[in-house]
Each structure stands twice: as structure tokens, then as C-alpha cells.
């Protein structure tokens, strides 16, 4: 009986779905979907109708190749650093006693919520020529002249890794604590060494969540705008920074749109992989 009345309620009220969803749908269609279609349209338009001229122009511009390489290099470096340091941090937190876990997690969540601008800005203070790192190195006599960390690959990578770390650590930690401890105890009772237990029993069970986290970091890094703009000082332009140049400095909307469309497809492709990994993480439990 309960199920019957349940379905009836559902059916009777289903007209209401429109009422609940329509306002947001209208806003998102006007304020998001149509603008996305507009840049798509721009990217494939040229003087004589639709063509791929804009993409051709981009690909044949040496500067664009350089920027694409920059983007790839910074994304890979950031992702590798975050992947290694993030796994170790998440693993360590999962071994802490309860209070320690809470404190450590709070310290990971806190920066996650603080403005990207604030977190990026701090690195100018830390890594600048008169910053703490250089002052420490000089007072220890390790270097005579200050090392330039800013306005190059290194600075941008450090800043981006700092911002992306929580994106990997938080979901990965959730996956690590779900691993059944009895698996490791069983392996130990069968005489497996610590190293074998970790690499053959523990790690494989966390691999899918790990890869999903790595994908997420890659997705966010590839379209990052703020940190390369500030810590790169225009010397390490990534794809997103070139979009800005084609809007504000050299107004070429069709080229800005074409880069945005390339970035859109790359992101969607990576996101599709991420979704598959994320869905499979649930299956193995």
C-alpha cells in the first residue's frame, strides 16, 4: 500500500518539477549555455562563413606552440609533485590517532577555503629576492646571490602545487581509511614483509581513488589562470593567460574563443576519464 500511494504522490506532483527547476534552468541557459555556444560559434567563424581557420592560425603560430608546451610542462610538474607529496600526506594522516587526524585534516581543509589570491600572494613574500627562503639560504652561506624563484616555472609550479594539494589529499584520505585493516593483518600473519604488504595489499586497493584524484588535479591545473598570471609575471604564460591577452591586449575574440574551445574539449575529455575512475572506486568495495 505504501508503495502505491508513494507512486501516486509522485505522479500527482510531478508537474511541480518544472516549477522547481525552471528558474535555475532559464538562468543557466541564458547566462552560461548560450555564452558557451557563442564562443564555440566564434571559434569556427571566419570572414567567409564557417571554417577551421582560427584553429589553423593558432596551430601555426610559434607562440601558441610555446604556450601549449608551457601549459603541459607546468601541469605535469604540478601533478607529479602533488601526486607524490599528497599520497604520503594522506597516508600519514590516516595512521594518526583520532585527535591528530582531526587537527591535520583541519589544516588541509583551511587553506582549501582561503582565497586563491591570498595563497598565491604569500609566495611572493616567501620566495621573493628578499623573501624568507633566499634570506635563509644567504645567511647559511649556501648562495651568494639570491636565487630567483619567482617569474619562472619553479615559482608557478610551487604556487599551483600548494593550491591543488587539498584537491588530492581530501578524497584520497577518505579512500585510505576505507581499506579494511584485516587485509594487512592477514598478509602479515602469512609472513609478508612491510614493503610487500604496502605495495601488494594496501596500495592496489587505493589506486583507483588515487588516479581519480590525480585526474582532478590535472583538470584544474590545465586551465589555471590566477597563479601563472601572478607568480609567472607574464614570463610563463599558460593557455588561460593567452586567452586574456586575446581579449584585453590584442582584441582577437575569435582566437580567444578558439583557445577556450580547445581547453573546453581537453577538460571534458579528462573529466570523462575522471568520472569512469570515480565510478569504479565504488565498485571494488
Amino acid at each position, binding site marked *: 500500500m505504501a508503495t502505491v500511494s508513494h507512486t501516486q504522490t509522485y505522479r500527482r506532483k*510531478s508537474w511541480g518539477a518544472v516549477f*522547481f527547476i525552471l528558474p535555475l534552468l532559464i538562468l543557466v541557459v541564458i547566462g*552560461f549555455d548560450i555564452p*558557451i555556444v557563442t564562443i564555440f560559434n566564434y571559434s569556427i567563424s571566419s570572414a567567409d562563413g564557417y571554417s577551421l581557420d582560427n584553429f589553423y592560425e593558432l596551430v601555426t603560430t610559434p607562440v601558441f606552440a610555446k604556450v601549449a608546451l608551457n601549459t603541459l610542462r607546468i601541469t605535469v610538474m604540478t601533478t607529479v609533485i602533488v601526486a607524490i607529496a599528497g599520497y604520503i600526506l594522506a597516508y600519514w594522516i590516516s595512521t594518526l590517532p583520532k585527535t591528530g587526524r582531526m587537527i591535520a585534516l583541519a589544516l588541509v581543509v583551511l*587553506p582549501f577555503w*582561503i582565497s586563491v589570491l591570498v*595563497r598565491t*600572494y604569500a609566495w611572493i613574500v616567501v620566495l621573493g629576492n*628578499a623573501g624568507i627562503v633566499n634570506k635563509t639560504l644567504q645567511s647559511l652561506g649556501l648562495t651568494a646571490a639570491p636565487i630567483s624563484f619567482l617569474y619562472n616555472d619553479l615559482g608557478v609550479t610551487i604556487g599551483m602545487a600548494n593550491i591543488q594539494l587539498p584537491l588530492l589529499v581530501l578524497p584520497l584520505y577518505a579512500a585510505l581509511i576505507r581499506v579494511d585493516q584485516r587485509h594487512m593483518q592477514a598478509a602479515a600473519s602469512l609472513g609478508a614483509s612491510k614493503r610487500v604488504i604496502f605495495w601488494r595489499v594496501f596500495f592496489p586497493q587505493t589506486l583507483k581513488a588515487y588516479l581519480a584524484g590525480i585526474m582532478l588535479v590535472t583538470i584544474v591545473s590545465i586551465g589555471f589562470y590566477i597563479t601563472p598570471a601572478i607568480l609567472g609575471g607574464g614570463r610563463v604564460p599558460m593557455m588561460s593567460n593567452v586567452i586574456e591577452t586575446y581579449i584585453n591586449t590584442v582584441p582577437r575574440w575569435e582566437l580567444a574563443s578558439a583557445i577556450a574551445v580547445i*581547453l573546453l574539449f581537453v577538460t571534458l575529455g579528462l573529466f570523462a576519464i575522471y568520472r569512469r575512475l570515480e565510478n569504479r572506486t565504488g565498485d571494488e568495495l
Partner: protein
Amino acid sequence: MTPNYAVRTVAIVTLGFLILPVIIVIPMSFSSASSMSFPPPGLSLRWYSSFFGSSVWVSATITSAVLALISSTLGLLLGSMASYGLCRRRIMQRGIIESNFMAPMILPTIITAVALYIAFAKIGLLGTLIGLVMAHTILLVPYVMVVMNVAFRSFDLRQEQVSWTMGASWYTTMRRVVLPQLGPNLFAAWVFAFVHSFDEVVVTSFIAGTYNTVPKQMFSELILEISPTITAVATLLIAFTVASLAGATLIMKRSVQTV
């Protein structure tokens, strides 16, 4: 399994690296020097008085607050309605509609920024408050929906059914049964949305025109020349974020205890 020294050291260094920016900026803001040296040679509140005495920063703060207040309230209303509709009603193409609402969170903000810049330029919304509110609302709605989807899915549908069975209208059910219990979730969603709008910089820098917000002003100063006043702004932003999130967490916790 207890981690060895190497693992522990790397983990602690990583954690230190993660919070370093936050712990550096705060003492810097109380520095008496105008150079960016650390540790500060002496303490003063000069950068805070420079912030509150600057008409540029004060008006940017007011703009940010008004924009965040309107956008987060609108986003909370539209986002939680849509979340309720998606959780409780049968809808065709539900997956597509939900992905569409979440897309602005997943796509790089620069794509949204350039798309809105070009589209708004064509229809005359560039540099208008309406354009800014639309953009901010669209960007923060996914955060509202993430919080409210969890809330509606864990809320027992039978409570609503009982209320209907006893003759309550949908409106009464909402007002007397559903909303009082979801109050804390709504508050948390609103705080997340507000913080998100207040911090938004990429899309705002593209479409704000002559409107100036705190992050936009901060971004342009960081690109051009850096004044220590920014450390005070940054510290105020940190304090504001921590206070809002602590408030939201506290209210959420209290609600869990009473249930």
C-alpha cells in the same frame, strides 16, 4: 601500519608547505615596515589603517559584500529549489540537467569568463550589476546544490508523505516540516555560496567593467605593483573565511546533535 621516519618527515613538510602561505601573511600584515621583509622588524596597525582609510578599498569591500549578498541569496533560493526538484520529482533527462547546473564548477573559470565577456558584450550586460549577479549566481549554484543534494537525499521522504496524508498542503509541509529541519544545511550552503562569491576573481575581472571588488582590486595590484596594504586585506579575508566556516560548522554540528 606505522609509517617510517621518511614518510613522517615528508608528510609533515608537506603539511607545513600547505599552511605556510596562511601563517606568513598574518604576521606580515602587522609589520611596521613598508618593505616585504620577514619577520617584520616591528609591529603596527598602519596597513589596516591604510586599508580602512582608502576609498578604493572601502568601496571595493562594499561592492563585494553587496554582490555576494545578492548572488548567494539568489543562488541559495534557485539552487535549493532545483536540488529539491531533482531529488524528489521524476524528470526527463535528469542527468543532463544536473550536469548542466554543475558545469560551471567543473570547467576552468577562464572559459566561463571569456564566454560571458563576449556574450555580455553583445547584449550590453558588460559592466552591469545584473551581469555580475548572473555570473556569480551561476558560479556558486553548484556549491549550494552539492550541500542541498546531500541534505534532501538524507531527509526521510516519509516525513513529507505523512504530512500530506494528514492533509497539509505542500506549502505547509515545506514551512513546518522540511525547512525547519534543513535550516542548518541551508545556512551552511548560504555561507559557502557567500564566501565563494566574495572570493571570485577570474570572471569578475573580465566582466565587471568599472565595478571594483576586493579580489579584482587585489589581483590588479598583484600584477602591477604590490603594496603591503594587501597583507592587511589578505589577513582580513582569512579571518572572514575562518569565522564564516567555523559558524557554519558549529551550526551543522549542533543540528546533528539535536536529531
